[in-house]
């Protein structure tokens, strides 16, 4: 009897903890959504608060998002989409190549390169922003999509993941491909890549997420108002001369939505993408 009783208490504690934490995680979304439906003036007066006049909620701010500031917000959205897609695609292509190369072949310098991959994985990019900025200026990458993408297209974390994944690829296929007269790259693209599809899914989503939300580097490399990505554009609405909450909140909500949809559609790939390295010893 006592053990049953104990179990019940345990279950209550577990669910209570889970519920409280879940509430903590979701409450900000609720307020972001509600705030996006309120006039920005109210935000200035009270901050984010429990006093909500539900009858005053309306979609006006979202309309402003399309029309306001000469339609700059849709432009930011397009910039973000282009940069995210291009970044993800190029990144997957290159890092899968590198990861595969490191896993399949034996060649001189392989260990050195792999060690470098591991080291670079552990360096915060923030240290490099100054020289990278100077470099970007000197090779004319400032204020362009390329400038945002190029320095971070070959992500070490992705390489690491693809390498781990490619280690488990069957070597027999490689030999069979060679006997059929396929070149090394043909083998990679036609035989191995399809086998690595789950890895592509996981890394693709991870890369898309980090690219969509990336802040530090785009903040520095982008210049013109019409080239900004969403996070930078939203940040630019916060000024010493009064924050534009009418645009900020609906803008923030809209920026979360696509990545949220992607997550809901493909939770599994998200999660396996994140467990890179976490499981290895």
């Amino acid at each position, binding site marked *: 009897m006592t053990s049953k009783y104990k179990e019940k208490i*345990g279950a209550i504690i577990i669910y209570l*903890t*889970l519920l409280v934490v*879940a509430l*903590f*995680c*979701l409450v*900000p979304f609720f*307020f*972001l959504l509600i705030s996006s439906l309120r006039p920005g003036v109210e*935000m200035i007066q*009270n*901050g*984010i*608060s*429990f006093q909500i006049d539900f009858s005053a909620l309306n979609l006006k701010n979202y309309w402003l998002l399309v029309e306001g500031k000469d339609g700059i917000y849709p432009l930011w959205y397009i910039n973000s989409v282009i940069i995210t897609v291009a970044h993800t695609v190029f990144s997957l292509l*290159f*890092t899968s*190549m*590198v990861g595969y*190369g490191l896993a399949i*072949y*034996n060649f001189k310098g*392989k*260990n050195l*390169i792999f060690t470098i*991959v591991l080291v670079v994985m*552990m*360096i*915060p*990019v*923030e*240290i490099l*922003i*100054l*020289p*990278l900025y100077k*470099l970007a200026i000197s090779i004319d990458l400032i204020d362009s999509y390329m400038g945002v993408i190029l320095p971070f*297209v*070959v992500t070490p974390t992705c390489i690491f993941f693809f390498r781990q994944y490619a280690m488990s690829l069957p*070597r027999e296929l490689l030999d069979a491909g*060679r*006997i059929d*007269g396929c*070149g*090394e*790259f043909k083998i990679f693209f036609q035989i191995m890549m399809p086998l690595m599809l789950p890895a592509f899914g996981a890394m693709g989503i991870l890369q898309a*997420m980090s690219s969509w939300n990336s*802040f*530090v580097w785009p903040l520095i490399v982008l210049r013109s108002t019409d080239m900004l990505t969403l*996070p930078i554009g*939203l940040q630019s609405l916060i000024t*010493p001369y009064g924050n534009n909450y009418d645009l*900020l909140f609906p803008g*923030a909500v809209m920026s979360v939505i696509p990545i949220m949809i992607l*997550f809901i559609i493909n939770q599994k790939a998200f*999660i396996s993408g994140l467990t890179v390295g*976490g*499981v*290895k010893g």
Partner: protein
Amino acid sequence: MLEPPVVALNKSYNRLSKIKTLFACQKKAPYLFVLPFVVSFLVFFLYPIISTVIMSFQRIDGPESITFIGLKNYKNLINPHFFNALWVTTRYTFWTMLVLIPLPLLLAVFLNKKTTIGKKYFKSAFFMPALTSVIVAGLFFRLAFGEQETTLVNSILGVFGIKPMVWLQDPEGSMFAMVLLCTWRWLGVNIIYFLSGLQGIPVELYESASIDGANEIQQFWHITLPSLKPVIMYVLTISVYGGYSMFAESFALWSGPRSPGEIGMTIVNYLYQEGFNNNNLGFASAIGITLFVLVMIVNVIQLWVSGFFKKEGV
């Protein structure tokens, strides 16, 4: 590891095009595969690092007035602002580790229990915040921690009869806000790390333990925790890395490196302020190099302790 057999067929050089041969050649192909990384490393990593090192010995007033000043930039690091930044960053890292390791571990254990229902929904809820950009999160937290009585946090405190607080002008209050912001965004990610670790623990271990009469808490201490050591080490590493390179959270809360009394000034914020706002490129480079060394030391120690070098066998 198996050495791939050399296939004679491939060696017929038809000279259709040089590129084709290059791509087909087994000896050169591996280098082509890793080429993107090598190029990217040289151009976007090694070169910038080297130029940072060089700049850290210079005083730069403009493209045409650069003077070599030796170690002066590093000597100038001995000032209260840098120490404050170091202290703020260290405290931040400490608190994020203290919260973001035990809490997600506990939640992961709860979620991993067979009897828990609604796991999928909890997991999604915990993970949602990780999908937002730091600017969106900062927007919410800045306003929720506003100083009026009506703001979210102050009105919650009001329920318990606590007076409203000026959070973002108080060292402890703002540290709390920063750590909470970080917790909100990264809790779900760490839960997933721990969950994947938990799923790797063989069920038999628990079964035999419960036959021996060990209760759940004992099982946690003697089986779960030791088995999760690699994951915990990994999360520890990324926490140190993330903590010391923190920039955007503070930037979002105070719209730039402008917290009062430098209560939210982290090392990278200091670097940004000196490099971009004050245009002391040389000095900022010295900050960057110092941070680099700091993070490397911490990482190497951590890897050493976890026996990483032995396993990977370079």
